């Protein structure tokens, strides 16, 4: 049995010691004498969050299939253990071997949301790895960043040796081989990074210099090393049915957030909602083969013993073989009592049929995400859902026995007026009225409509990357306004409006479109004691306010200003397929309240055609040179 890094005494004095002991079913332990590369995969949040993430499970499985590579996991120690480790100088360790992270060859950190940035520093610090990449020695692990936030890596650029831009399935084996090659010839850390810089998709921040204009915007962004390319194109896996996918994901002992099998049915999205970063970044849409998914579902349920399976994608209804897949799962898993959950389904006859088969109608709710209250604003954001869709879908569902509707909206979208906000309340009321159209004796109790709003944060690589974000006061004012409008509705008593506060929204806004100079802010606030900022009970606003004041971070510059068409953005050197011209065109089309058809209806010439596959080749009968 693996000797634990923490003593019984420590483990018995912290919350949920199981977070730190490893040994889970399907976790992988390799004999050390058959391993020459040690990789530690980190999700910089608490175990229960990190273990719920599919991407990590895919990469964990992939790395461990590589000969001679042993991939282990680490998550952020919760503040109770964090305190003890600092006090007693206990170095951070990987779960499987319980060995110190500092002795690993690689530490790969996944970047899923901006508010985990201080936890990256926590992980490095507790591991005893210098926080700043340029200060690391030959003995330190190579620190890699990846995941959605790597599409604007600049605010955390100083802390990483390199970023892997794009999908992990493609070139990690090459990188490991380069590492071995460099080690065999006695090469230095710097020499290895120079080799890495030549691999498509790899960004080594220290090989680039940034110059600024007087108005603080970027003047130039240029390589300072002959091995580093000026532009870096993302990695895309075009063969999603032939690549790595775990048959046997790790099964946690603890109850984690997603305690189920996750089946990623496709990657990318055809819809082109203009606020949605994922919908732009992961183009083109690529479906996994339905037979592959069926086999995978059966294997994963068998090997984990999970009692639930969920389909994951940005918009499941767009998966062409969805009925075939879902009816197969329902049939196959009926006897085994496996629950099937289907997030992000468009409400139609098929969805209602499936939902009535897989869930308790009385306890479940319908979900719509119109994102904006008025058709005008929905056109601006290119959200194809119409009022008619929502009312018809609701009516069908009410007739089927549902009486609980959730509606998701955003406040602070570009061009938004009071009228648009009021329409949120009106739409909620219309849904309720629809319910009361049903004769009383056929109704199923009271109807419950829950509209909720989040605040809009402009993200890189979206048509709204140029826009100014709302101020905190504006957000609060809008939420209050909407609350009052909801109260005025005929069915106000059936409508329960929910909204979240905006402290984190502004910070998210800073980092989402921030530049390299923000690393000073992160270092400062981390040294003041900020970690786990994404957790409301851990978030310390005073520390952030103080650090921002000390580092003279100008919110007007980072968050509240409209950017010029030709401004050089911190992420412009990355090529995510979609072109800046396309994004600008989409922005202007949005301002003109015009919709752009989805990829299946017609190609909008976004640039992702360059990857030669997926939807782009289904809809256009053209040769590659016709692009743009």
């Amino acid at each position, binding site marked *: 049995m693996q000797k*634990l890094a923490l003593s*019984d005494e420590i483990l018995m004095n912290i919350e949920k010691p*199981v977070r730190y002991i*490893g040994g889970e079913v399907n976790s992988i332990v390799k004999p050390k004498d058959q391993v020459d590369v040690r990789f530690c995969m980190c999700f910089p949040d608490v175990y229960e969050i990190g273990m719920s993430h599919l991407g990590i499970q895919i990469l964990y499985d992939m790395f461990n299939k590589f000969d001679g590579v042993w991939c282990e996991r680490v998550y952020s120690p919760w503040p109770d253990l964090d305190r003890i480790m600092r006090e007693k100088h206990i170095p951070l360790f990987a779960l499987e071997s319980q060995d110190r992270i500092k002795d690993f060859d690689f530490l790969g950190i996944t970047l899923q949301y901006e508010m985990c940035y201080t936890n990256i520093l926590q992980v490095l610090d507790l591991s005893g790895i210098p926080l700043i990449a340029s200060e690391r020695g030959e003995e330190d692990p190579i620190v890699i960043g990846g995941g959605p936030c790597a599409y604007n890596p600049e605010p955390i650029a100083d802390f990483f040796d390199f970023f892997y831009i794009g999908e992990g399935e493609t070139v990690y084996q090459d990188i490991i081989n380069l590492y071995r090659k460099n080690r065999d010839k006695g090469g230095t850390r710097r020499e290895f990074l120079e080799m890495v810089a030549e691999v498509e998709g790899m960004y080594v921040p220290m090989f680039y210099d940034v110059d600024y204009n007087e108005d603080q915007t970027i003047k130039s962004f240029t390589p300072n090393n002959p091995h580093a390319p000026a532009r870096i194109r993302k990695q895309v896996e075009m063969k999603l049915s032939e690549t790595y996918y775990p048959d046997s994901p790790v099964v946690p002992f603890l109850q984690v957030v997603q305690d189920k099998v996750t089946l990623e049915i496709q990657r990318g999205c055809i819809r082109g909602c203009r606020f949605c970063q994922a919908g732009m970044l992961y183009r083109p849409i690529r479906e996994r083969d339905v037979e592959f998914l069926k086999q995978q579902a059966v294997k994963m349920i068998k090997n984990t*013993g999970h*009692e639930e399976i969920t389909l994951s994608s940005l918009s499941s209804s767009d998966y062409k073989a969805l009925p075939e897949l879902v009816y197969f799962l329902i049939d196959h898993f009926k006897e085994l009592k496996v629950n099937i959950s289907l997030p992000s389904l468009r409400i139609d006859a098929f969805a209602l049929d499936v939902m009535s088969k897989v*869930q308790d109608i009385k306890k479940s709710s319908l979900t719509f995400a119109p994102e904006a209250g008025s058709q005008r604003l929905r056109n601006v954001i290119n959200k194809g859902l119409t009022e008619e869709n929502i009312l018809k879908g609701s009516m069908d569902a009410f007739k089927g026995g549902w009486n609980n509707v959730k509606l998701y909206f955003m406040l602070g979208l570009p061009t938004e007026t009071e009228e648009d906000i009021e329409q949120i309340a009106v739409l909620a009321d219309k849904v309720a009225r629809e319910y009361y159209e049903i004769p009383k004796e056929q109704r199923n109790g009271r109807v419950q409509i829950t509209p909720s709003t989040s605040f809009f944060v402009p993200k890189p690589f979206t048509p709204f990357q140029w826009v100014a974000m709302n101020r905190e006061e504006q957000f609060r004012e809008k939420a209050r306004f909407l609350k009052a409008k909801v109260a005025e509705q005929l069915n106000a008593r059936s409508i329960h409006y929910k909204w979240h506060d905006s402290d984190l929204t502004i910070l998210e806004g800073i980092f989402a479109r921030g530049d390299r100079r923000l690393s000073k802010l992160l270092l400062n606030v981390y040294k003041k004691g900020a970690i786990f900022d994404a957790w409301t009970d851990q978030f310390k606003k005073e520390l952030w306010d103080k650090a921002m004041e000390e580092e003279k971070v100008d919110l007007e510059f980072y968050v509240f200003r409209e950017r010029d068409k030709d401004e050089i953005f911190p992420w412009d050197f990355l090529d995510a397929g979609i072109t800046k011209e396309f994004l600008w065109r989409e922005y202007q089309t949005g301002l003109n309240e015009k919709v752009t058809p989805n990829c299946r209806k017609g190609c909008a010439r976004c640039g992702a055609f360059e990857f030669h596959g997926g939807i782009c080749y289904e809809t256009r009968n053209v040769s590659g040179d016709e692009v743009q």
Partner: protein
Amino acid sequence: MTLRIKFAKYGNLKFLSHLDVMRFFQKAIRRAEIDVKYSEGYHPHQLMSFAAPLGVGQTSEGEYFDLEVNSMISTDDILTRLDAQMPEGFKVLHVSLLPPTPPQTRKESLMALVKASDYLVLRKGLAHLPLTNEEFLGKFSEFVKEPEILAVKTTKVGDTEINLAPFIYDVKYDVPPTELTEKYDNGLCIYVKLCAGNENHIRPELLMKAFHSYTGIEYDQYEYQVHRLEAYALKDEELIPIYKFHE
């Protein structure tokens, strides 16, 4: 059909809570493809019930749960298949088939059946302890012979003082640690049989705490590792290990 399953929880998995253990077995049973019986309704659950929960941090080779199944090949087959799903830290030790409950009688609960438990209390032999192992043994053997051993038991309704003496059924000093107990250089192993069950459930920690107040030496829970060996039911005035109860 009701199966009674005996298992061990040891090593690093001693940190799992009772809830974690239940969830673990639910998944293990599914992986083992046992034809388990489910409750009705939209959220069916496996029909299983556990005996007295073990404290977090304690190890055991005397844990039990009952499981309802629709069919099986044999109890041996269940044992082999379920044990194949155990990671290091769990072990399936015994599977028996319970006789059918006669009609009109209520099914006896496993929890209510337990009347006593055997434990090994391992003194870790840490260097800083005030008593040497010899001194410790001397004092402890005097202590357990006291006619009255007072201890404060904390329950939901408040603290009550009880006399442990009648509930200490046996103490031995020559029972060796087993394969599944934690190993300590210079450690010491004491065997105790204590009353268990709904009314007077005596945890070994309570006994050790009472010993410390007897000696006047401050109690440090990390001085000891508790390992449960077996749980017993009462049959014809005699304590029988739970797994033999229906034989």
